[in-house]
């Protein structure tokens, strides 16, 4: 193991080299800028890069610092490995045999070519969300691109994506904020409400930056109200922690909308009229009243007393109340319907559903509405803008249920009623609007108005991306992902369905997955019940995984494992591409970073994107790959790759960087400086005030989509919760609320632990030490009183059993700060793989409790249900750990 450390070093203690290399952290997908110290060829320290805004201005969260041990962990996969035990299963010993890269790639290329020639749809590409930029844009999309569209395309999956990511959240953030996710404008916000979100205390989107900004806001007196079943990382920093039954955030948000609009009479009517479809006229059947000539939705011009298309520049003022006749048909402005509809969501109703006292809901609604200062303005850099220093955000926990989409829209309604959307102080999307670097005007992307006047997202990629609007019409699915049916989905969970065979057969999809290629993505521990995952993956003929470590997925199911480079050994410009969830947000400057190796890849480790080039060449499709890159960047003739040009990954990066930032800003500049920065313009930050585009408060599009979906689904004898396809944002209870058997009296849920991302962080010794020191991270937590009533106490081994018999065992730690009707497990621990000796046996794997099937999903976005009803009792010590 010590080949790297020479005898010379042991003898003399001279420091011959002491340098700091700027690069990016790879411990979650925030990609914060870091500086890494190297002494005599050894990496010794990781610190935040104090010069960038993409991070904590010199600080860094604990797991970011700990990443050094990833680099040198002796359990790293160092050579390509082949499984020699043909049996696959949860506890199978793969009996790895070391092979050469030549042997590995020859076999992989052969099988890859075969499946792409046969039917690319039989290939499943999966990637960890943590390195999502690398694998999405450097692996999955190129692989799709080298199969031409008419041939079909490989399936894509993000591991943990179904669980840790948010389909409902991303859909709504896309439609309302043109972005991937939302955050309070901390610099100006005075009152924030979090619904199952950990902005400033978790991992993921701009982790270290939000820690910094949220701390600053707190310090200056910003009030943060956190609705969360547990008072741990997020609730622990709240001005007010409000315990809530999981999955009931929508009821609270709707009640607040009702209180604010109908009881307090507070509303940003101008915002509703011009920035939403609240002013669109709606017929009795719920559809827009459309102009006969242009098919555009109509607004009633109150001054001229006539209907006009929504973007008619001659409109003086629009109505939000009343009843009107257009072409002989009765119609009302959507907002009138919304106002009436909200009346049924009283604070008493929401209290009944959520367990939050009705007085608390009413008070917080008033505080939020008052704090929003509807009608006020602020001048920033010479621009007069609406000032709304109140923001409500929802993320992972709040949206992780079968009512995901309606819940997220409910929170967006709360924001939009007070005009808090991409204005100073309000709810911001991560930056979706860029005019580009001053010298090159790249990357350039600006949301604009599309169909029916709604926001259409843009990115600086030509291919792929987040395009929630306009919603494509559902089709009878021909794709295993079912995304051609569920067209509002971002990350499909279907590959994890326990009833996928039945579903696929019903839809008559004739082919199946025959090959899997993955990058990270430990789907056994990080999606749902492992038996379900095992069943789905054990019969797939050929599985190849690029991995840092051998884990439960590779040991049980991989045929070939390829040694991945860790972030400290990688050059890539892809992780600098923020995909609008980690660029500095608000008024902070644009910062575009690269990863660069602090030490050269050790042993035979290779970066997946670089291997992709070789694979494409081996299967004779290099021209298609080059075509992909040409389109990806929109290279002009000077920069374009020639069809048969074999460019190295580093040279491609150099070309890409120069293309984006100018000839003097190639790989050399970036290696020297780590990143490039330029100021953000107010028109970029608060783009909503400069772009004439609207967001939905009335979900008219759901009518036709719902009807079509129902037709297709019922046609094959399946059922869905079709009532959720309703244009008036509504409360629907989630699946766990409907469990009939009351003996399953607790809601089990998981939540983000600041020390952890996905399942891999459990292997890091420093993180393990912190997790052990923390009273909650490796334990199962319950409310003290509830535990007492059940006759269990701190330190007891307890079992959690779901209403369908899934069971996990762990150690109890009671909390005052937890809702009495819940039981919780942090993060994603409970490993048993041989390849993870540090992680092995620590904590408990929450995901084992989760079912994943056609029933356990949000019918609009396919978000999976992440909470389940359980009962808890004294457990058996022998059932801890899963190696049996």
């Amino acid at each position, binding site marked *: 193991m*010590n080949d790297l450390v020479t005898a010379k070093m042991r003898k003399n203690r001279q420091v011959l080299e002491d340098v700091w290399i700027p690069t990016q952290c790879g411990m979650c997908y925030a990609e914060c800028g870091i500086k890494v110290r190297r002494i005599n060829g050894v990496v010794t320290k990781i610190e935040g890069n104090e010069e960038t805004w993409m991070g904590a201005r010199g*600080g860094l969260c*604990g797991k970011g610092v700990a990443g050094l*041990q990833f680099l040198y962990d002796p359990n790293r996969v160092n050579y390509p490995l082949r499984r020699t035990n043909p049996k696959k299963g949860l506890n199978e010993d793969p009996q790895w045999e070391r092979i050469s890269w030549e042997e590995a790639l020859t076999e992989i290329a052969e099988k890859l070519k075969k499946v792409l020639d046969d039917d690319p749809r039989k290939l499943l590409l999966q990637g960890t969300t943590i390195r999502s930029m690398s694998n999405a844009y450097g692996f999955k999309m190129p692989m799709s691109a080298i199969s031409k569209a008419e041939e079909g395309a490989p399936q894509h999956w993000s591991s943990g994506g179904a669980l840790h990511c948010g389909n409902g959240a991303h859909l709504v953030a896309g439609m309302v904020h043109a972005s991937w996710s939302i955050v309070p404008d901390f610099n100006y916000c005075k009152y924030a409400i979090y619904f199952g979100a950990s902005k400033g*205390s978790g991992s993921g989107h701009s982790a270290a930056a939000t820690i910094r900004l949220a701390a600053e806001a707190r310090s200056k007196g910003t009030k943060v109200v956190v609705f969360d079943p547990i008072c741990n990382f997020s609730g*622990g920093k709240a001005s007010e922690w409000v315990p809530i039954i999981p999955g009931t955030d929508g009821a609270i948000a709707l009640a607040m909308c009702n209180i604010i609009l109908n009881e307090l009479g507070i509303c940003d009517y101008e915002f509703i009229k011009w920035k939403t479809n609240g002013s669109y006229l709606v017929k009795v059947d719920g559809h827009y009243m459309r102009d006969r000539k242009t098919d555009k939705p109509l607004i009633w011009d109150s001054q001229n007393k006539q209907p006009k298309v929504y973007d008619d520049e001659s409109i003086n003022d629009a109505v939000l109340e009343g009843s009107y006749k257009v072409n002989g048909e009765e119609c009302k402005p959507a907002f009138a319907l919304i106002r009436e509809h909200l009346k049924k969501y009283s604070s008493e109703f929401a209290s009944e559903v959520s367990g939050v006292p009705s007085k608390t809901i009413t008070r917080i609604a008033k505080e939020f509405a008052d704090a929003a200062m509807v009608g006020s303005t602020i001048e920033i850099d010479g621009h007069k803008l609406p000032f709304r220093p109140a923001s409500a955000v929802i993320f992972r926990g709040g949206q992780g249920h079968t009512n995901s989409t309606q819940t997220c829209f409910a929170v967006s309604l709360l924001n939009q009623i007070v005009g808090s959307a991409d204005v100073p102080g309000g709810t911001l999307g991560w930056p979706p609007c860029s005019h580009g670097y001053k010298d090159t005007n790249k990357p350039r992307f600006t949301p604009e108005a599309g169909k029916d006047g709604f926001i259409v997202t843009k990115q600086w990629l030509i291919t792929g991306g987040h395009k929630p609007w306009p919603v494509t019409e559902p089709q009878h699915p021909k794709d295993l992902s079912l995304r051609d049916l569920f067209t509002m989905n971002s990350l499909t969970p279907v590959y994890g369905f326990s009833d996928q065979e039945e579903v696929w057969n019903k839809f008559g999809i004739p082919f199946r997955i025959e090959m899997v290629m993955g990058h990270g993505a430990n789907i056994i521990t990080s999606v749902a019940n492992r038996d379900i995952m095992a069943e789905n993956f054990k019969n797939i003929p050929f599985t190849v995984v690029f991995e840092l470590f051998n884990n439960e997925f590779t040991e049980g199911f991989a045929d070939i494992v390829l040694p991945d480079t860790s972030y400290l050994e990688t050059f890539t410009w892809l992780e600098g591409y923020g995909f609008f969830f980690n660029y500095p947000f608000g008024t902070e400057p644009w910062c575009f970073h690269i990863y660069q190796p602090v030490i050269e890849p050790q042993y035979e480790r290779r970066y997946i994107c670089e291997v992709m080039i070789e694979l494409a060449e081996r299967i004779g499709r290099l021209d298609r790959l080059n075509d992909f890159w040409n389109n990806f960047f929109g290279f002009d003739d000077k920069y374009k790759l020639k069809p048969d040009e074999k460019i190295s990954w580093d040279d491609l990066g150099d070309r890409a960087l120069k293309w984006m930032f100018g000839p003097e800003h190639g790989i050399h500049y970036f290696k020297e400086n780590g990143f490039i920065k330029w100021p953000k313009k107010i028109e970029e930050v608060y783009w909503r005030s400069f772009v004439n585009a609207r967001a939905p408060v009335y979900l008219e599009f759901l009518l036709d989509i719902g009807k079509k979906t129902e037709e297709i689904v019922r046609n094959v004898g399946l059922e869905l919760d079709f009532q959720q396809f309703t244009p008036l944002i509504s409360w629907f209870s989630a699946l766990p609320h409907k469990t009939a058997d009351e003996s399953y009296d607790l809601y089990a849920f998981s939540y983000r632990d600041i020390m952890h991302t996905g399942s891999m962080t459990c292997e890091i010794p420093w993180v393990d030490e912190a997790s052990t020191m923390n009273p909650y991270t490796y334990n199962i937590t319950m409310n003290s009183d509830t535990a007492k009533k059940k006759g269990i106490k701190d330190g007891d081994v307890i079992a959690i059993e779901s209403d369908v018999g899934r069971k996990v065992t762990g150690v109890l730690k009671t*909390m005052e700060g937890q809702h009495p009707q819940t039981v919780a497990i942090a993060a994603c621990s409970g490993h048993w793989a041989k390849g993870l000796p540090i992680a092995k046996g620590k904590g408990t794997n929450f995901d084992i409790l989760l079912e994943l099937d056609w029933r356990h999903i949000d019918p609009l976005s396919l978000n999976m249900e992440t909470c389940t009803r359980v009962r808890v009792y004294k457990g058996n010590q022998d059932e801890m750990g899963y190696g049996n």
Partner: protein
Amino acid sequence: MVIDLKRCVACYSCMISCKQENFLPPSYFWNRVLIGESGKYPNVRKLMYPVLCNHCKEAPCVDVCPTGATFKREDGIVLVNFDECIGCRSCLIACPYQQRSFLDNDQTEYFPGQGLTPYDVLGKELKNYQKGTVFKCDFCREKIDKALERSMKPGIDREATPACVLACPAKARYFGDIDDPESEVTCLIRDKKGFQLHPEFGTEPSVYYIDY
């Protein structure tokens, strides 16, 4: 040092950065984060206390040390000279904050049974920890002294600031001279009513907490 409890999010960065900077062996901590709760459901507050050696002005560890291995520098930093420490551990007992550790084993493998990583090996060459002696936070003395030679300012210049202070992403930690009436730390203590942990111990800690 001043630690802002409102800013702290208990991310353990201070704890891990300290370990990393100082090449500490497994299971030893010079910085820790203590987690607790106060109140009863639903009026609960999570407590997060980063703790470390308080570099007390009236340090009991200095008083009890029989060899003078533990001593207080003029600038206030309390240090241990490993070469003079005989490992009697009187200081461990004397410290009411339990911030001192006795290095009682050679176990330095973070990956038990799998040898030392290049980082660990280099650490052994750069640091002189000795089995059978006591060690503790030294406010990154070696780093700071090197920076002071170059006229850098502690708490202001990164090179002259302890690792735990630099690491904090919430900017919850401040470092400077509490005997300087104009320093940032002095102003914070004064303006935000900074408090010491267990002042009744009478040791006069140099670490203060604000914004509980």
